[in-house]
């Protein structure tokens, strides 16, 4: 496999049954199908289980601070706009500690492909509740059930100005690959929420059964956005597919205009 560092990076650190490997696999398949040059690809992450993925990839990889994948990736993209920059991180990393960066990157509309692996808890630290843990669900720091409400990742991205927003699950691997492909091809800040099972922690604490059971629940509990005819259809379901796709000027292109204006302004000042 191109795109994988097979020399001595494996075995990986993920738990048996974890959904993150499936998301990584879908991402790599998207790279292969889009023929992305690994020498012009940078995969950026923060801290957490899904943030360990770049360490297994054979391209430029940037494992940054907790919550800071998006601003770090922004620096890479701004300095080298010709590079393909993909950000991967978990729900805690991207939406709690990194939440401010997430919404402002969406507003800025710099071309970054952002994959939010949502497993509804902080896995790396042992299963504490995260900003996507549903209200009432159990977590290590919510032994009596989570008092807080969870974020809807896609609504948040859309509201903040992301130009492409999609969601699917680790069960829907083909769709996941296709959505990541579309996101990479989109000019602007594109978000794919990949719901993934964490059978070791979130699953166990909420008695959701094995990884297979959790995947089956994703299959049975989801509905394609195209099948949602009235709002009631989506209640309690994971709505999958492309949820939002609009065009807006991309930051590095706008910046080209800024540079031209700045040069013209200087010439005028010199007159």
């Amino acid at each position, binding site marked *: 496999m191109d795109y994988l560092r097979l020399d001595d990076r494996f075995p990986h650190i993920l738990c048996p049954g974890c959904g993150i490997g499936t998301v990584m696999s879908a991402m790599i398949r998207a790279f292969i199908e889009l023929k992305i040059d690994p020498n012009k690809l940078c995969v950026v992450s923060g801290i957490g289980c899904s943030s360990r993925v770049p360490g297994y990839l054979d391209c430029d*990889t*940037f494992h940054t601070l907790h919550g800071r994948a998006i601003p770090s990736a*922004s620096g890479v993209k701004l300095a080298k706009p010709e*590079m393909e920059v993909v950000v991967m991180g978990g729900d805690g990393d991207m939406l709690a500690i990194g939440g401010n960066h997430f919404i402002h990157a969406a507003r800025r509309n710099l071309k970054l492909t952002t994959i939010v692996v949502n497993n509804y808890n902080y896995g790396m630290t042992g299963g504490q509740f995260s900003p996507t843990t549903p209200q009432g669900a159990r977590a290590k720091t919510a032994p009596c059930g989570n008092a807080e409400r969870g974020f809807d990742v896609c609504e948040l991205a859309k509201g903040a100005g992301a130009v492409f927003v999609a969601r699917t699950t680790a069960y829907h691997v083909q769709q996941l690959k296709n959505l990541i492909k579309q996101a990479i091809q989109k000019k602007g800040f594109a978000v794919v929420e990949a719901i993934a099972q964490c059978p070791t922690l979130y699953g166990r604490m909420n008695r959701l059964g094995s990884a297979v059971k959790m995947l089956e629940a994703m299959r049975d509990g989801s509905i394609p956005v195209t099948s949602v005819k009235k709002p009631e259809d989506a209640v309690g379901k994971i709505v999958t597919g492309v949820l939002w796709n609009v065009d807006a000027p991309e930051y590095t292109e706008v910046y080209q205009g800024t540079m031209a204006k700045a040069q013209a302004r200087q010439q005028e000042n010199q007159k």
Partner: protein
Amino acid sequence: MELLSGNEACVQGALKAGVTFFAGYPITPSTEIAEEMAEELPRRGGLFVQMEDEIASICAMVGASASGAKSMTATSGPGYSLMQEGIGYACMAEVPCVIVNVMRGGPATGLPTRSAQADIMQARWGTHGDHPAVAIVPKNVMECFEMMALAVNVSERLRMPVSLLMDEIVAHMREIVNLPEKADVWQRPKLTTPVDNYVHFADDTNFDSALASFGEGYRIHLTGLTHRPDGFPTNDPKVIAWKMDRLARKITLNRSWLYDVVATDTKGADTVICSYGSIARSAQEARFAFMAQHPERRVGHIRLRMVWPFPQFKLVELLRGVRKLVVPEMNQGQLKHEFERAVSPDVEVVGVNRVDGEMLTPEEIMEAL
């Protein structure tokens, strides 16, 4: 000849040194640096970006530097606090970058519009863990220019973050300066190593050897985790020790040129004033006025151009035989303790301190002599 503020001169120094990327967040009294960069960089083909906070600013700067652009940010006390984790990351991943901290009074929001030298210790130990630190302190507008360029060069040569600690006085003071056409500029060496042989953290003595950036085909891995020479994380105690030693050696192997001290008449002096930054000007004035009044006394002056690394070994030589040190600072005595450690216990070390936002006057320093 130009009439420039310290903040403006700092921008000119950065541009002269080849900075092409600035990420920042507005904060008094450093904001003019960002404003000037927003004017200067786009028309030179460089990148100016205003981020959502200081944390994002330092991360974007590190990302850009790792992608090959000489990068900087500018902030002040509270923003510098927010950047500390990112500074640690730049130390660990060995990414060159410059953080300008225009110091103001603290803690917390403190004194946004008044001056202080309040972040001397933060510049040394602000980020967690053992790490090397370089902090450069200009005393006037011309030095804001020169030392900004120096900060860029040092950070590039040592592959680590460097802080330029200005203060509100030098930042907003205007002086007539004659900026040189040319400055010494350190260029990142061209990488010729074949991809298969390349190891990112290979050379343990020449930190200024060529380093790969993102997008050059070397497929590097940068992480804040303790890592092996190839950049990948490890828990092997031997490798951890190697990495930590390597970081410390950036300073110890380069002391000869990192110890940047200006000594005036310290030989045979009974008393030496030890100063840095804008206070060096009061100190110099105090010394002249005092010696005019007391011709029998011999007062020397030591000015640190870099406070970190603290030039301990150099000071031991320079201060031999001195009976008394006077350390004026616009803080409660942050560097005084370092001077105490550099001299024998029987030398009297007197601090002259102000933390009310006002500059120390020559008279106040004279009283302590």
